[in-house]
């Protein structure tokens, strides 16, 4: 993944799902975004752990459900 995308949640998801960034809805969540399936969820968590440099604790991992929460986590690394 290119480092320029590491801290923007929409760009992060676009990389994960290999789609143009405009394809990611503003309210993308595991409930609403049809590409966000169980295997995609695993890729999201694993790549987030690469970015933050450590295994997510269980509470943080359970919160990874939508764009907003992904951005909150990425912001901790800015």
């Amino acid at each position: 993944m290119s480092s320029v995308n590491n801290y923007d949640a929409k760009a992060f998801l676009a990389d994960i799902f290999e789609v143009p960034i405009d394809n990611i809805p503003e309210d993308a969540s595991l409930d609403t975004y049809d590409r966000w399936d169980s295997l995609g969820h695993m890729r999201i968590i694993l790549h987030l752990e690469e970015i933050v440099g450590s295994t997510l604790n269980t509470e943080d991992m359970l919160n990874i459900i939508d764009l907003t929460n992904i951005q909150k986590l990425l912001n901790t690394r800015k």
Partner: protein
Amino acid sequence: MQIKTDNYTLRTLTIEDATECYLSWLKDKDINRTLDVDGQGQTLDTIRQYICKHDNKTSFLFGIFTKDGDHIGTHSFNFDPKNKLATVGVMIGDKSYWGKAVPLETRARIMDWAFDDLGCNKIEAGCYSINMPAIYNFKRQHWGMEGILRQNRVVDKEFIDVVLFGMTKKEWYEQR
């Protein structure tokens, strides 16, 4: 007994369903690392014993079968009639069905049966914190997170948490 979904049939297993294929799932490290099972210690006999432990009155072991009759996984279901409380588990052994939302479809139908027909009031389940696809499925199905059992299991020499989920009849009916 049998429960049908759009794409699958859930049928209670018999000892004839203890196959080499089923055994291979339990011995597969990709599968058994997030299950409470000693994969390497399993044999066809241990599977038969496990199947026979389920009385099909309060304890059920459903096989998940495709419309072509291929066995791809299992659901365990145990019911406490006094407290109207059940526990459900799932294993998708055929990895070609991973990522295809099988548990979302099959567990939903089990919950319909449990709440509509069995008189269940609440269903509990859990998974290892490292089982991200399982957590996705619980979240996607809007199970309530009931607790985290910290450092409750050892996987690959690391302590990991177990996450507990619950769904009441009222909660299921509100979203159904």
